[in-house]
């Protein structure tokens, strides 16, 4: 699992364009963008219209068909109750994206507010908010998640909130540094000098120009949140069955690793692919939005 924090999230938000003296070639960036975006659109399709992609029932199994290896009929094999694992992956997408999406949303909103205050509201505010971020970093994110999930029952909301709190810090940091960068640009100075109010300048000039890295972090953090949720599932803090969810599929299937490798491995590959694609998508976004 990924423990989130700023982890790959923050770091790769600001990803490497590439090695020395790389030049940014927009057309190739577009191609790269589509290459990463297309599979992600497929995943989005799974989430919105699962019925289009599979006809098997994700929650009712056929006892006699348990532990079947992958085949033309069951692409990802079947599980211990004879349920089709591919169907569970497809039907699990929406729950997965909703939970991870909530986590990211919380990180984004809270992080943006904190980062904005830190960067624009003066030194005292900066010191206070950055100490807050330090506290968020100092208390391990997974512990926060564990406590939140324990306090309320595990489900999409508590998991999303738990993981989301842990990602506030990385958003706050990105927003703060971006805003600091943008703030010092000439046109922003000009906007202030030409009598713009604080709010209007922030809304009209600073935020829009800081969106690139934040959007990019958003994509990356979505992947990290998926991993974090699967890690929680592994530790026994997942949503209750039978609702399929990606992280739970690997964490529940692992019990049968010795006898039915596909149960944990194939959903695992889907997660890896999705997270890598999201990271790549984030990088592409950054290239496009950067100026």
């Amino acid at each position, binding site marked *: 699992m990924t423990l989130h924090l700023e982890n790959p999230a923050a770091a790769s938000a600001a990803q490497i364009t590439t090695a020395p003296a790389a030049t940014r070639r927009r057309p190739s960036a577009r191609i790269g963008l589509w290459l990463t975006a297309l599979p992600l659109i497929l995943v989005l399709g799974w989430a919105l219209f699962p019925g289009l992609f599979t006809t098997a029932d994700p929650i009712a199994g056929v006892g006699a068909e348990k532990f079947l290896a992958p085949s033309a009929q069951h692409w990802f094999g079947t599980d211990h109750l004879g349920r089709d694992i591919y169907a569970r992956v497809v039907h699990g997408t929406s729950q997965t994206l909703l939970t991870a999406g909530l986590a990211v949303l919380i990180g984004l909103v809270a992080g943006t507010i904190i980062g904005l205050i830190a960067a624009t509201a003066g030194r005292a505010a900066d010191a206070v908010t950055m100490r807050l971020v330090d506290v968020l970093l100092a208390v391990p994110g997974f*512990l926060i998640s564990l406590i939140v999930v324990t306090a309320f029952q595990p489900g999409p909301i508590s998991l999303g909130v738990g993981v989301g709190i842990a990602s506030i810090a990385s958003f706050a940091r990105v927003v703060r540094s971006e805003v600091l960068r943008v703030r010092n640009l000439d046109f922003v100075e000009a906007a202030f000098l030409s009598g713009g109010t604080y709010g209007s300048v922030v809304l009209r000039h600073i935020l829009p120009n800081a969106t690139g890295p934040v959007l990019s972090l958003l994509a990356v953090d979505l992947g990290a949140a998926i991993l974090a949720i699967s890690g929680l599932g592994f530790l026994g803090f997942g949503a209750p069955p039978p609702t399929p969810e990606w992280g739970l599929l690997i964490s529940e299937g692992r019990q049968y690793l010795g006898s039915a490798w596909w149960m944990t491995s194939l959903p695992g590959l889907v997660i890896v692919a999705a997270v890598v694609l999201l990271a790549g998508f984030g990088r592409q976004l950054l290239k496009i939005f950067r100026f």
Partner: protein
Amino acid sequence: MGRYVAQRIGQALLVIWLAYTVIFLAVQLLPSDPVTIFLSTDSAVDQATIDNMKRQYGYDQPLLVQYFAQLGGLLTGDVGYSLASGEPVALRIGGVIGSTMALALSAFATAVVLALAVVVAATLTRSAVLRKVVLNLPPLFAAVPVIWLGLVLLELLSIRWGVMSLFPDGSFLSLAVPVFVLGVHVSAPIAQVLLKSIDTVYSQPFIDVLRAKGASASWIFFRHALKNAGGPAMTITGITVGTLLAGSVITETVFARSGLGAVVLQAVTTQDVPLVQGLVLLTASVFVAVNLVVDLLYPLLDPRILKSNGQGSPRVLAV
């Protein structure tokens, strides 16, 4: 300088205190009475016993009184008793911390080596294909779930091929494999930060000057780029502390190693509040201490920091 150091230490203590307070409040959210959980195995609990226990541990007091009593205890070095085992919290944590430290430190070293390897390969290779492949490694490392990698390696190495023990028996592989699994995971953010800062260094004019002077690529890389990228890389060290600790929980669970991971899980599962608080105190202190050291060393590495940033937060954002 002296004033700066004092200020940083003060901030560090402030963060620890805040973290402790946040967790004190957070554990109040937990649905049950810590004492009841400790007492109830599967037999009936007598109300008088519960009251007794509560009195003994001070849970019958108002929240504010509890808070200050615990804080007071903290100042005198008393972190309380684990409710589940009756052991002092300090002893419970102290008994396993060595194992986690060994794992975390070795994994960190592995991660740095891995990250450097990625960076060197990506920067110095002449093959564009190889570079693309290498550049995609950190996101891949970050995307592979630790659980999955650990379980698959155990299944293969221990059960299928019989070359390593399922248990932490002190053999080389029984430490090396968990270290590798955790190291891979932690190397991703380090590699990404390093790559990013090296990228920044390369975009600076002095590199072009060096090139013009005819310096070789590897000379420029090792002598200048890497050195200049060292600062940001150091700050990520501070941040990695949290990731390392959290990763240890999963790694230890997968490899059945004793350590903080098992204690954290037990503490939360049994809602052993004093133990949870003790753990947070520990992780917050480690995090703050590492970052303090990084911050204090940073100006030595790059004296510009102190001058340019008067607000006492010299940490270059690791983003």
